[in-house]
């Protein structure tokens, strides 16, 4: 996709003040930013995301201010039989804003703050690794063509033929068994790393496909020919000439990959495969809450609604970004 023709389009002057300078030159990036600024959905979802990310980053600070840690247990606030929180809506009170967990008696609010951190960290890290791998493979396949393209395209098609969830689910245990014995405790950082690796291994193919298509249409253009004629090396053409023309589709696919990974991570943790209990995580929390649906229905709502809001905000922002970067596309 080329953004250059849009520079020629008449640029609506935002301020009514008489501009003696005449036409102001704006880069495609500035134009996209202006369109994004004017989009109300983009602004609201963007601010929500910023807020949620700040909360996630500031988790230890919030813990200090709130005065309760994610592993503190308040068993005295549970009923003696059945361990259900006392009080209304799962034990909501001034000390425990979202109530406490049935069974363990841990505070839900602070666990969600930390869960947000787990979720956003894994999703962003996976999306970054995916984009890096996918862009490199896609550019190489598209520009070099020949057997490189054949091999990469075949791997892409093959990876798309694998059912993701069941494969991700199945590969986790063998990978753990490679490095740890069957009775050993698997550390959380290792699980996080494996999750990111799984997402990257499955996710890079769609980015690669997208980038490859773009590169194929770009590689015959004059500026590439000019670069080649003036003796530019392969690395220069790939990353200095081609890459700057690809940032729009890459950014869009990146922003839509993040919510997919948030969902994927929560799904795996829900199945008890990803992040497991003492570590705070939305998926694992919802899985626990299913068992308490009858006795403590409030428990499912807090993590359920938060993850919904997070994914919705990411999706809306991704869509708005696409509209801003490529106004011709209609959803």
């Amino acid at each position: 996709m080329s953004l250059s023709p849009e520079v020629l389009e008449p640029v609506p002057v935002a301020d009514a003040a008489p501009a003696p300078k005449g036409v102001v030159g704006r880069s495609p990036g500035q134009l996209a930013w202006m369109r994004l600024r004017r989009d109300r959905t983009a602004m609201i979802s963007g601010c929500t995301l910023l807020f949620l990310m700040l909360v996630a980053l500031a988790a230890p600070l919030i813990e200090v201010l709130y005065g309760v840690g994610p592993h503190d247990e308040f068993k005295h606030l549970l009923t003696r039989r059945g361990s259900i929180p006392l009080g209304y809506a799962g034990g909501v009170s001034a000390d425990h804003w979202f109530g406490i967990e049935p069974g363990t008696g841990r505070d839900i609010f602070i666990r969600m703050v930390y869960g947000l951190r787990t979720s956003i960290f894994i999703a962003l890290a996976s999306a970054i690794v995916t984009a890096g791998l996918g862009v490199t493979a896609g550019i190489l396949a598209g520009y070099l063509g020949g057997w490189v393209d054949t091999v990469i395209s075949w791997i892409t098609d093959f990876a798309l033929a694998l059912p993701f969830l069941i494969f991700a689910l199945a590969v986790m245990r063998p990978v753990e068994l490679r490095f740890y014995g069957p009775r050993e405790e698997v550390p959380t950082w290792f699980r996080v790393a494996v999750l990111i690796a799984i997402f990257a291994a499955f996710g890079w193919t769609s980015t690669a496909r997208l980038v490859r298509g773009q590169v194929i249409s770009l590689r015959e253009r004059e500026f590439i020919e000019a670069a080649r004629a003036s003796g530019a090396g392969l690395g220069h053409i790939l990353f200095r000439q081609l890459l700057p023309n690809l940032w729009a589709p890459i950014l869009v696919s990146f922003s839509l990959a993040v919510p997919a990974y948030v969902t994927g991570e929560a799904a795996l943790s829900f199945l008890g495969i990803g992040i497991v209990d003492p570590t705070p995580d939305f998926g694992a929390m919802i899985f626990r809450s299913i068992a308490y649906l009858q006795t403590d229905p409030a428990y499912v709502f807090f993590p359920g609604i938060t993850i919904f809001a997070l994914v919705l905000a990411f999706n809306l922002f991704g869509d708005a970004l696409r509209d801003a970067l490529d106004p011709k596309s209609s959803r």
Partner: protein
Amino acid sequence: MVRFLIKRLLSVSLTLFAVSVVSFLMFFALPRDPVTGMCPKNCNAERLERVRQELGLNDPKVEQYAAYMKGIFVGRDLGSAQGGKCEAPCLGYSYVNSEAVTDTLGRVLPVTLSIVIPAAILWLLLGVGLGMLSALRRGTLIDRLAIGFSLTGASMQLYFVGALLLLIFTYQLKIVPVPHYTSILDNPLDWASGLVLAWIALAFLFSAIYARLARAQMLETLSEDFVRTARAKGLAKRTVYGRHALRAAITPLVTIAGLDVGAALGGTVITETTFGIQGLGRTAVYAVRGGDLPMIMATVLIAAVFVVIANLVVDLLYAAIDPRVRLS
């Protein structure tokens, strides 16, 4: 058409071969010692060594793979401890369940089929209908509601929707029984009432995605010349939209629907876990938790076979509908 078919079949078998090699390596070569993962609770070194012998884990990897593949196509003898002779589609023996893997699969496969097929019919009808409606009534309240619905659905998590449905219909209103599976042959009414929540949850999420796709496709088709020509010719709106435009608009949806159904048949893991129904997906989860490697490998293979077959069916359908595909 015959050439196209042969080419596709060749590439399908190549993909399946690659899947089988990758999953075999994943489950039998990746772990330090595959046996430790599939050992039942009380196992000592002696028992472990016996299991290792019976599974042939001391043989070279290539031989193990060959034996496994031979089991699938012609059957193999697994030895007395593993239930003796294992008939043709032999996928090994599960120490955790103490039965042949194919026996377990035969039991859980109808469950997954019963969840996926009605749900797929529901989500296609709902999704395409809603998408059409909102494209034809573009800009009206109906359109905006439909867009809101598809945005919500696309960001909702299946387990959360499932939990809400359970909470409302089973625990509060008490109009739907706790989800369970009965064979449709035994009691069709019980079959439906036990699975209806799973159908609704799946259909809600998928129809949101389909509504969005169908709307975009329909809008694109409606702006094409042949639609204008048909209208200008004086054809009734109903004929133009219902026959000409719809047919052109849903062809791309066929691809996506085929792949989604294929993937869902490979295990509606989350649906089954949420509602506690023992289908292929939940069996896979249990196998993973219990470290039952032959079982995991079998579920992964089956899921991949479903996806690959769905791919093939979609391609053939496409080639039948659109002759241009065959030529390229």
